[in-house]
């Protein structure tokens, strides 16, 4: 493993206690704001100092509280792409990139390397402009260029797309993924956007209240998010407390329904999650009478709120989302969901 992190840091009433490893891969950390994602990156970069623990990168100890090792950021060789990109406002794009090459004494080599990276990132035309004169996407490329010429042993991306217009993100995500394909070192990206995490990352860690709850391969995580926060962060809209009533059956008191599951139910079951697009009017299993409460039209989908017949009034309605070609003339009287699509959620493992 290229990077090993096991740290603890107390900040006010908040306790960051996180342990994970990152190889030569694109690792995502998915969490809501204030969960400690950025703090984790800052600890790895040496901007923040953990209270306890150890950080090792490619065999080099960056931080070790027991051995009193705490390398300054300058000696860690870790690239950090800030959320606001942090381009130096008093310098042009080219001067910013040359800052990443400050270690290179040979002037000709320095200029050549800057040229190469600027060509690679399509920044040639922008060299003489200042950060205030370029767009968000261009600023992101410039900041990335400044990091890449610096040849870090690890790249960290802090919410890299959150400052960009929504309609530009998809293209920039594709660009970035392609660009970093041959990077050859570990990449850690923190985000609260599950689509972004899914598109970019090989593996994803779910972070909640300062802890990485689970870390698994991206597609597996979306298939089985394991915990309530995992389900929430991967975008599951319907989560309710549930009890085990059989090896393949659970009872959901809030909805007053018994659901059959494909996976065997463990005794410590906490809740179930059903993604909004898993409901179907013609499904044969887990099919119960429902009342549609209200609907909202989206460009290509319908979002419907419904209630089960026996659902208690104080429980929020259930979400159902479907494409427009599946629209019926009348709202359905009943909705079902395949047992394979009932996600079983358990308490997070300690440690």
């Amino acid at each position, binding site marked *: 493993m290229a990077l090993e992190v096991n740290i603890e840091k107390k900040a006010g009433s908040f306790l960051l206690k996180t342990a994970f490893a990152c190889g030569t891969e694109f690792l995502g950390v998915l969490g809501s704001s204030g969960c400690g994602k950025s703090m984790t990156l800052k600890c790895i970069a040496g901007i923040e100092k953990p209270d306890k623990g150890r950080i090792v990168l490619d065999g080099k100890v960056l931080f070790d509280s027991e051995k009193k090792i705490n390398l300054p*950021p300058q*000696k860690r060789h870790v690239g*950090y792409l800030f959320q606001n990109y942090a381009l130096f*406002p008093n310098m042009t794009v080219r001067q910013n990139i040359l800052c990443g090459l400050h270690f290179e004494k040979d002037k000709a080599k320095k200029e050549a390397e800057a040229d190469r990276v600027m060509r690679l990132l399509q920044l040639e035309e922008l060299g003489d402009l200042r950060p205030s004169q370029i767009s968000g996407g261009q600023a992101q490329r410039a900041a990335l260029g*400044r990091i890449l010429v610096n040849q870090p042993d690890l790249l960290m991306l802090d919410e890299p797309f959150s400052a960009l217009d929504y309609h530009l993100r998809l293209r920039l995500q594709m660009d970035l993924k392609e660009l970093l394909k041959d990077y050859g070192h570990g990449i850690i990206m923190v985000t609260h956007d599950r689509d972004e995490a899914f598109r970019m990352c090989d593996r994803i860690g779910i972070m909640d209240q300062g802890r990485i709850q689970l870390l698994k391969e991206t597609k597996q995580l979306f298939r089985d998010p394991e915990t309530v926060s995992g389900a929430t962060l991967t975008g599951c809209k319907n989560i309710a407390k549930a009890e085990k009533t059989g090896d393949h059956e659970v009872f959901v008191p809030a909805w007053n329904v018994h659901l059959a599951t494909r996976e065997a139910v463990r005794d410590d079951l906490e809740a179930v999650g059903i993604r909004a697009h898993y409901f179907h009017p013609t499904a044969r299993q887990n099919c119960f009478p429902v009342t549609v409460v209200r609907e909202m039209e989206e460009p290509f989908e319908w979002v419907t709120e419904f209630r089960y017949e026996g659902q208690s009034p104080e429980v929020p309605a259930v979400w159902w989302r479907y494409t427009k070609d599946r629209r019926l003339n009348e709202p359905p009287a009943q909705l079902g969901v395949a047992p394979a699509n009932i996600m079983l959620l358990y308490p997070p493992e300690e440690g």
Partner: protein
Amino acid sequence: MSEIGTILSRLDWSPLFISLKTGVVATFLSFFLGIFAARKVVKASPRVKAVVDGILTLPMVLPPTVAGFFLLLLFSRRRPLGMFLYHELGIKVVQSWLGCIIAATVIAFPLMYRNARAAFEQIDANLVYAGRTLGMSDLRIFWTIVLPTAGPGIASGTILTFARALGEFGATSMLAGNIPGKTATISQRIAMVIQDGDYLTAGIWTLIVIGIAFVFIFLMNLISGRVLTNVQRW
């Protein structure tokens, strides 16, 4: 009119040069000391910050005569430091031009320090972090990123410092005295001629001071406006 002409032709111009020299030297000293102090204080822990900031700002808040009194106690030739400076190094502070400089610097320094500190605190910390993760030394980050980005605040601090140093009266009169041709600054000359009832001479000096102040502020704004192209107009 002939009266003004006579006064001008017989005017002792030395206060003008003493004031300008004092102002320039005191601003020069405050510039570096203020930036140095601001840089240290910005990095300090909150508790240290509160105490040090209080001490450094004190000369600005105290009446200048109180500051002058402290300086006099410190540098008097009957006191240890003053004695040491005079007898061991041959340096005379009280009743000398050096006294003018020290008084003006002490009084004007807080303006430089506070403006520099405010400017530094406005800077996005991520700029400094970005520099560090790129492996740039803290000193290099300061000179190439922090200082230029803080430019407008530094410039206005310098202007205010110069203006304050140029007109310093209270502390200067106590520490350096009012020796014509040596420590008599424009402010002191104005006070002296007014005591003698010579309002015309006082008026001439007043106009000169206004002229100098205006020219300098105009020049500084011109320079800072041209150099700091990263400042956005709004």
